């Protein structure tokens, strides 16, 4: 293919785009709106995952110690805990601190505690696990391990609550994935169909080009480029609308996270490919010999 032919192909694309502005605009709007559903869904999923992650990160494991332990023993135990796999932070909470915290939490009803002769709360370690280690299996294994240590009275991490939360998160992910798949497939269908209609509209053009001896490449490439451009335009439209939706809803939901820019760039590329492939496969039916 020489330069002139390439130029003619681009000319063809420009003529096609320019002569049917209305039809092209409608096609881009239809594709853009269906892509909007997809990106809104992706943003909701992203925020949902963030929320679940954050909730998990709040998770702490408490190692309660027996009464009357020497300070260097507890110090050693702290280091031992820190040495375990997947542990990010271990802080010591003395029984005194624990009582103060407890009192603070009770507020006005803290007078109840004044009746106490001695502090019934034990010394404890508050253990924070690293991200990626926040699973019920891992927490159970840490609990199982440390409970055997000498001087450890009990290990707690809200087992039931945590497992329930984990199941809930899993359920949410499964529903989200199923929904995502359905939305994804219908968006692909809508885009493919829209591009296909564009190609069908040009049936005469394609027939004529074949009759005057155009090679398949000469016929195809302008349409493929056009499909890709339509995909890009539609994805930009979807992103613009998403930005507006984000700006509006983050007034009411302050912690809302926007899509990452590289993900958005990937999305644009994906839509370009989708448009091009849609064009290509729609034409295969007319170009076959």
């Amino acid at each position, binding site marked *: 293919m020489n330069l002139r*032919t390439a130029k003619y192909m681009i000319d063809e694309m420009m*003529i096609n785009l320019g002569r049917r502005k209305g039809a092209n605009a409608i096609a881009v709007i239809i594709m853009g709106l269906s892509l909007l559903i997809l990106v809104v869904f992706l943003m909701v999923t992203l925020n949902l995952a963030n929320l679940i992650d954050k909730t998990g990160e709040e998770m702490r494991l408490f190692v309660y110690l027996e009464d009357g332990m020497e300070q260097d023993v507890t110090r050693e135990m702290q280091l031992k805990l820190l040495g375990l796999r997947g542990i990010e932070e271990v802080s010591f909470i003395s029984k005194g601190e624990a009582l103060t915290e407890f009192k603070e939490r009770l507020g006005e009803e803290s007078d109840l505690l004044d009746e106490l002769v001695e502090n019934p709360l034990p010394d404890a370690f508050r253990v924070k696990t690293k991200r990626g280690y926040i699973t019920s299996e891992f927490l159970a294994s840490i609990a199982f391990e440390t409970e055997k240590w000498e001087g450890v009275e009990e290990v707690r991490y809200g087992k039931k609550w945590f497992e329930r939360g984990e199941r809930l998160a899993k359920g949410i992910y499964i529903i989200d994935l199923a929904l995502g798949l359905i939305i994804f497939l219908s968006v692909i269908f809508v885009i493919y169909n829209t591009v296909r209609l564009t190609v069908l509209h040009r049936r005469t053009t394609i*027939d004529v080009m074949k009759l005057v001896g155009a090679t398949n490449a000469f016929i195809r490439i302008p349409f493929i480029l056009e499909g890709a451009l339509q995909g890009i335009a539609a994805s930009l439209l979807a992103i613009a609308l998403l930005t507006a939706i984000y700006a509006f809803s983050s007034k009411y939901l302050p912690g809302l996270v926007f899509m990452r820019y590289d993900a958005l760039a990937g999305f644009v590329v994906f839509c370009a490919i989708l448009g091009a492939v849609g064009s290509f496969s729609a034409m295969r039916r007319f170009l076959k*010999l």
Partner: protein
Amino acid sequence: MSPPEHRIIAGIYHLSKDLGRHFSLTDINLQVTNGEFVFLVGPSGAGKSTLLRMMYMDDRPDSGQIVVGSFVSTRVTRRTIPGLRRKIGIVFQDFRLIEDRTVFENIALAMKVTGTPMSKIKQRATKILTHVGLYHKRHDFPKALSGGEQQRVAIARAVANRPAILLADEPTGNLDAVSTRNVLELLFKINAGGTAVLVATHDIEMVQSFGQRIIYLENGRIARDHEKIFVGDVRDRMDESRVSRRAEQLSEYDIRDEENE
């Protein structure tokens, strides 16, 4: 001066083709030499269009062979067909112009696909459009033209790449008498310039007066093949020809039609 050389431009050899619904083409043999003008006549459904389609290799014979230039139907592939189409001009009853392109662009497209430089496209398009008498309408869209004008644009497009043969499938089928006359005249003119022309039509009456070679297709076979009987320029005889008589008939018909409405 040596006599003009007679080369076969398109040849059909022992062609058979099942057309479905009990119609078929059987053992068709015909050759068109360079610069020849041929009418292919037969009733609707006789397989004229299919025969033409097989000549530009949009369809394949069940048996037998078609040779156009250096292209052989049994050996042609997807990749070589564009090369064949550039050697053939094709005209249809329904014109097949691209609606959203101007007259000039429709003609230019045929030359663009062959990679002709733009300066040459402009030059050639100007020449052809002047030839078919539509240069002043080069910036119009097909819808703004009459049927006869559209067909002339289609013919201009068909000859843009200087084909060795022009195939026309009922080129006057959608036209009134005056346009029919103009289109036929144009086809004769193109033929006079050296391009072989093959016109398929069901209108036996129309073609008989020109003295051109007429091939009759009946019941799937070639019933008769009348060689050219007159010599000289056919356009000289157009005035007394049946075209004009038919023109009168048709215009009467048109008026009657309007009265009925």
